[in-house]
């Protein structure tokens, strides 16, 4: 009988690191004799690369404490993944954790206690990913599952007060955090009139650690689309439909903010470029991606305008994650018609 032990935990970790750093080091078994040099490690590393400038921005605006949060997420996420790998006797692959462990702190408020980072990461990985069988089988984006859980479980820590970012000189590069001289303010979603578009683009407005430096998010998001790691359809449909629905809503009801404010506030850009595009949890058919993006936009505008939540991105993505398989199946049924054999439809 197999007994998980400390040694096997250690071995799993070493093996994962080795295979991540060195690669497999063997040859193709048969056809095709040559393979594309892109593998999942590089694919996911591209996402991490695109998130790096945004992370640097988070350090600048909110201090080194952001890196402490990333470390906590990687550590507890890593331990969780290794335990699942050992118990299931499967290989532990590092690359998906590298994204989740970076993305999760980026969508947390700057004042978040580090123990909440740990709890959220573990919850997100267990219930957002491993419960479904691991990367590739998960229905929900693990970072969002973690975020929604900690928001529901610890609302006091998660909904304010919102720190005003460092914006002068070397900013957060010289400080661990801003608690000591805490200056707090309303987020742009609560009081849009307080901030200029430049504030919103350059990260001078409060918000979660990685969602405020929007200029960088746009550039990084475009980078990912250009290298074809993320598909352009979802962000374009998502942002376009937010613009369209908020324009329509704003014409008749004042609780819907105008399009440009909507686009440049909250976690919309980070969500549209980095979370809604997760290929595993979004539809794989091309028309499906468009439908998915448009639905995300509608939901986001509705939640932001009609509920007591100022932000609606993560709920929208969580809800649409659940619908992704349904959208695909409808598209496939439309695209591939049943085959008739001797006049009888045989695979309806």
């Amino acid at each position, binding site marked *: 009988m197999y007994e998980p032990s400390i040694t096997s935990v250690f071995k799993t970790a070493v093996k994962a690191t080795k295979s991540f750093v060195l690669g497999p080091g063997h040859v193709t078994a048969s056809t095709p004799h040559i393979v594309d*040099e892109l593998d999942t490690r590089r694919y996911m590393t591209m996402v991490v690369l695109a998130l790096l400038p945004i992370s640097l921005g988070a350090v600048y605006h909110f201090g080194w404490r952001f890196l402490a949060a990333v470390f906590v997420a990687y550590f507890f996420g890593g331990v969780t993944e290794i335990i699942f790998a050992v118990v299931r006797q499967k290989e532990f692959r590092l690359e998906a954790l590298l994204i989740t462990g970076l993305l999760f702190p980026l969508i947390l408020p700057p004042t978040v206690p580090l123990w909440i980072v740990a709890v959220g990461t573990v919850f997100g990985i267990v219930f957002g990913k491993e419960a479904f069988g691991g990367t590739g089988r998960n229905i929900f984006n693990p970072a969002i599952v973690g975020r929604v859980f900690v928001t529901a479980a610890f609302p006091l820590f998660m909904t304010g007060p919102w720190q005003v970012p460092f914006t002068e000189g070397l900013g957060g590069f010289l400080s661990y955090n801003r608690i000591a001289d805490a200056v707090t303010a309303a987020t742009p979603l609560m009081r849009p009139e307080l901030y200029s578009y430049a504030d919103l683009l350059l990260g001078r407005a409060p918000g979660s650690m990685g969602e405020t430096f929007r200029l960088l998010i746009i550039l990084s998001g475009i980078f990912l689309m250009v290298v074809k790691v993320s598909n352009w359809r979802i962000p374009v449909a998502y942002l376009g439909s937010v613009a369209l629905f908020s324009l329509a809503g704003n014409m008749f009801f004042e609780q819907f903010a105008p399009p440009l404010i909507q686009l440049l506030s909250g976690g919309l850009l980070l969500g549209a470029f980095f979370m809604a595009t997760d*290929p595993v949890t979004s539809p794989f058919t091309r028309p499906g991606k468009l439908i998915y993006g448009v639905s995300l936009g509608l939901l986001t505008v509705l939640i932001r305008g009609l509920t007591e939540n100022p932000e609606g991105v993560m709920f929208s993505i969580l809800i649409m994650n659940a619908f992704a398989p349904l959208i695909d199946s409808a598209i496939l049924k439309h695209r591939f018609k049943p085959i008739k054999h001797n006049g009888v439809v045989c695979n309806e």
Partner: protein
Amino acid sequence: MNTNRKSFPPGYRFRLEGNPSADVIDFGIPSMVVIPLKQGFDEEVNAVVEPGDKVRAGQVIGRGDQSSASSVHASVSGVVESVAKIKYAGADVNAVVIKSDGTATWESLEASSNNWESLSVSQVEELLYASGVASLDRYGLLSRDSEAGDDGRHLIIKGVEANPYNISLTALVAEQGLSRFVEGLKILQRIMPGAKIHLAFGESERELIKELSEVKGDLESLTIYTLPSKYPLDNEEVLVSAILGSNATKGWADKVVVLSAQTVFHARDAVVDGKPLIERIVALSGPGWENNFHLRVRIGTPLEFIVGEYLKKTGRQRLVPNNLLTNLAFTDYALPVDCTIDNLNAIPENDSPTLFSFLHPGAKANSNSKTFLSALRPNTERSCDTSVRGESGMCISCGYCEDVCPAGIIPHYLDKHVQQNIIDLQLIRYGVFNCVECNLCSFVCPSRIHLGWNIKEAKRKLAEDFNEIASDAVIRKFSHFHFGG
């Protein structure tokens, strides 16, 4: 004459290091040859020689009794050493081993004529059969349905360079002359009167197309197509639908003959010079060879002769015929060069782990993705070896396989069904029989999933379980093809 430009949105453009130069070098007369008594798709024929017999190059050494299989010829003059079974093309096949006397002359076929236009159609056909040329390529030269009539038939000549490595059309024409190529086309037109001839060339063949339009004479039904050098356009099924469109191709096997450019030259040589099928030009491609060029080689020359002379001595190399994505590697170098080989690809075996390979800039990386520097340098030759470069894992639905699939299906979706062992009529609905088995999905998969193998296996099982429905689906598969043009 019409020239027609066709686009091909899916697929992948291979640009690998080690493409053969246009030089054609004569390998000379080997000291011995091994000639399997089975050619291409034909059935095995019976030996008509015995050990100790003296034979001349071009002499018939194998002949079918009742079957319509082409005769097999000695490719060198000399003495028959043995007639014995060898493992060849996945079966035990009798092969004739001839010890050569080193002379280069050959015996010509009777009834051949410089003035071939005076020959009757059946005489021309007879020459093509007798020379062995009729059994070339996937379905042969004369796979015609006699009841189908002559009109509405098509002859497609493959000159498109769409495989990872290709025999160079420029090299073939430069070596043998454009006028011989045109003569070959006229001979083929003679045996398929009324058939439309389509030449499928690569985009880069502008010079050749210009020259061709000057010398083509009275071949009025000739249309030239320029196609992008994108894999798998070399695949018969893909090529046929790219050129004729999806509507014209229902039940295409009866109406369409697809031949390689080299076969046109062979047909010409058989009818005009009476030359039986005794030699062939093969391309030595890939970085595993010392140099890359074309080799004129007698059929039956053991691979080890060529390997010994030209393969790199350092490191291990993998030798694969024709297509690196679909053909099995050679394990036995005692096997001969046969009439199915256009390309001998040698690529280095690379099992060395690479530190942080996922962070390499990849100036020469061979990838369909845009994540390497090579994406910015479209004309750079990409490196080519057998390293897998990544662990296999679960599908992340990145969609690369769908992007490149020439059949317009969604390989990863089919593959997920197969991996869960759900192999039922749903798969037929989702187009499993559209698959042309080009293996490009397996090539691009970043999770290293063998989608190609799995889909092929599903097709095999479905064909067993739902025979009638499956064959129906196969016939109608082309209605799913999408081509721009």
